[in-house]
């Protein structure tokens, strides 16, 4: 009887202990993913259903951004272009092996990148490869990429987080295996539960500091924060700013505010009166107090933008100041023939939770310049179909992309997503010049001129680029403080 009691109490105790110490097992880094829409169900980086939290650790790109945002080597060690930047030659790293033991060579590069263009796959990354017409295998570790246009910043496009190298011919199985050349190897793949990654001891940058990585599916945002608090995961890169206080001053957690290139904005259609007059558009944009929006809407966690979509950390960003100027705004409105100001309706929705708040602050700010703005709510589920690019004034949001893509995709006169219907020959010419210019300083000048044109004429008011709140357990060491796609995962350690 006594023995039985002892047995029960010992086993109970050990169960309790195993609960409290299970999370502290050294060498395992636990992170979460949100399952996404359509369930993130595969490990094929170029498909819409890719579980990127896994592929960024198991597969490499040719090039990546270093900690300062410059293109640096990964599986490519050197690259150069011909005189008009239409042909790019990449030298590949030698002696790199895939997780299945096969060698990484030029055929794999050709296969991995050309399959992005396959219409049957319908990859969302297709755009990044659209200028590539052919990839020629020069020798086992050299490839030549041929473009249909001059593109001086082509290597920057190849830093796209989806353009990862997989073994040639593995397209049918990659979704399940996730095989690559990366620091971690897929041990067990379970999108809805826990995916287990094991260290790749032969990783070409050196063996990883972590023995295992667990990637756990947790769809609910609140549950993810709770999992972080209870130590069930070690990192959450999507903590809402309203919950910053929970972690501030807690020695168990490290809180960092990482600037991003993601932005929110208000679009005025440049083909619709009164916004077809550039003076009216500029008047509206001048009447905005951007710093106040950053403080009121984002609690200070954003970087003021002067209507440029180019990220704060991007080397091509035009640096300028744009304080609220009510006097000048009124003057411009008068010149444009609206001495008594204008009326406008700003369409918002809860698709983006901050839109309605931005709308209300704008309403107050614009009123000072005699602009009477009404904020109108529209259904969030049909926002992109029925409000955006349809109503004269509507809110928008974009995620970070390289300067060239951001300027082309949103403002080029021929762009599908030219949401403000912006057409300016000077702007288009600057972009074309930049693409063909191999001299960095001249290229930067062209991109900055394009952004100057936006400040003078564009219909899109971009008040700020948002920052991201990243909370990690203080046990996690050597995690680069950059966007998730540039982190060097093999360096990460855990106590």
């Amino acid at each position: 009887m006594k023995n039985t009691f002892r047995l029960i109490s010992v086993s109970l105790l050990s169960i309790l202990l195993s609960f409290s110490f299970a999370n502290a097992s050294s060498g395992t880094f636990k992170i979460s993913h949100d399952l996404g829409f359509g369930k993130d169900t595969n490990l094929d980086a170029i498909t819409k259903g890719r579980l990127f939290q896994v592929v960024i650790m198991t597969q490499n790109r040719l090039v990546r951004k270093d900690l300062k945002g410059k293109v640096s080597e990964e599986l490519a060690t050197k690259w150069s272009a011909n005189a008009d930047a239409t042909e790019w030659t990449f030298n590949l790293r030698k002696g790199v092996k895939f997780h299945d033991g096969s060698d990484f060579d030029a055929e794999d590069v050709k296969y991995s990148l050309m399959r992005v263009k396959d219409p049957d796959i319908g990859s969302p990354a297709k755009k990044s490869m659209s200028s590539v017409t052919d990839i020629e295998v020069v020798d086992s570790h050299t490839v030549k990429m041929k473009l249909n246009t001059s593109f001086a910043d082509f290597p920057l496009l190849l830093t796209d987080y989806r353009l990862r190298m997989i073994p040639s011919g593995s397209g049918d199985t990659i979704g399940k295996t996730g095989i690559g050349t990366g620091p971690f190897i897929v041990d067990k793949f379970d999108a809805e539960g826990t995916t287990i990654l094991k260290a790749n001891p032969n990783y070409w940058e050196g063996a990883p500091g972590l023995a295992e990585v667990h990637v756990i599916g947790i769809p609910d945002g609140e549950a993810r924060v709770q999992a972080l608090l209870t130590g069930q995961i070690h990192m959450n890169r999507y903590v809402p700013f309203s919950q910053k206080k929970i972690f501030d001053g807690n020695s168990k957690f490290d809180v960092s505010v990482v600037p991003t290139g993601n932005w929110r904005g208000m679009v005025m259609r440049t083909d619709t009166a009164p916004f077809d007059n550039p003076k009216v558009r500029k008047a509206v944009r001048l009447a905005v107090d951007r710093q106040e929006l950053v403080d009121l809407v984002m609690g200070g966690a954003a970087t003021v933008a002067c209507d440029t979509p180019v990220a704060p950390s991007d080397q091509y960003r035009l640096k300028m100041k744009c304080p609220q100027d009510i006097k000048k705004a009124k003057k411009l409105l008068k010149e444009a023939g609206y001495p008594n100001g204008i009326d406008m309706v700003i369409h918002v929705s809860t698709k983006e939770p901050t839109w309605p708040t931005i709308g209300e602050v704008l309403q107050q700010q614009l009123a000072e310049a005699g602009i009477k703005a009404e904020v109108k709510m529209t259904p969030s589920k049909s926002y992109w179909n029925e409000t955006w690019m349809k109503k004269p004034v509507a809110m928008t949001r974009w995620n970070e992309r390289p300067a060239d893509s951001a300027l082309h995709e949103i403002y080029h006169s021929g762009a599908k997503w030219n949401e403000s219907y912006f057409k300016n020959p000077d702007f288009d010419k600057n972009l074309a010049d930049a693409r063909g210019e191999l001299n960095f300083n001249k290229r930067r000048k062209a991109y900055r001129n394009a952004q100057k044109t936006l400040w003078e004429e564009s219909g899109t008011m971009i008040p700020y680029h948002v920052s991201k709140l990243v909370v990690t357990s203080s046990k996690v060491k050597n995690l680069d403080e950059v966007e998730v796609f540039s982190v060097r995962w093999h360096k990460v350690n855990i106590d």
Partner: protein
Amino acid sequence: MFFLVIKRILLGLITLFIVSLITFVGVEVLPGDACTTYLERQAFGAALEACYERLGLNLPAYERYISWAIGVLQGDFGYSLSGEMKINEVLGPKVKNSMVLASASILIGIPVALLLGIITALWRDKLPDIIISTVTIFSMTIPEFISATLLILIVAIWLEWLPGIVIVPSEASISELLPNIILPVIAISMIMTAHMARMVRSSVIQVMASDYVQMAILKGVPYWKMVFKHVLPNALLPAINVVALTIAWLLGGVVVTEVVFNYPGLGRLVIESISNRDLPVVQALAIILASIYVSINLIADLMTLMLNPRLKSLQIKK
């Protein structure tokens, strides 16, 4: 009796039909659909058409409803729009997981509720009643999402005794699930137990005040013999219906609790599929939840009928 059962089953089927219609129309009138949700900004032109084609959303609504209904009658819920998986396969493990959660809550909740209800009734207005009643009323008034969050805060974050949220795949075995469901079960059974305990209490008090119990007391029947032989059998009979209603209510409580604890069951699936506009899954879930609701009520009614001869004879006379 036989006809009564048949009649009730038919009524139940009609209820299910109406539920399926309401769900279908409800999801249909919401702005946006599975394709616009999935494609976001790319939702126009050829991509949108192709998506409609692929998911069969280009057919008129009534045609989609009819073909779906025929499938369900054959036991096939079709394919989910988002995951493009067979719904039967998606649902299987989730139904099991939710059943584990619900049955654990019921197995713990009902005996505790009976015990508490009887104690509070027999010691009415005395100290045990005052303490227990205060606690039950208190836990009745706190919604599960608050009690669940408080439980995580206290037990998982401060005391670090149990894992905060559930991290197991849907296919996890029951033994893998059990250590994870302690907190969710407490959160779910708190309100349910409190409700049932209050019902049992008033039912017992009512019977205790009835003439035949007073008579038994006057005749000198020993107190505990009277309680067990005369009071409880009569008091607990009406409680069966209350228990059935509470179990049906449990389905809603399970939804909220599963989301808070990240539990891979039906509840989490309900929330996910609604926000994904995954109409086939929403419909399948509505039908399943409604069938559980209807059948629990049916079983409760039949049990009351069988256990209470007076009701049976009344029905036959009619």
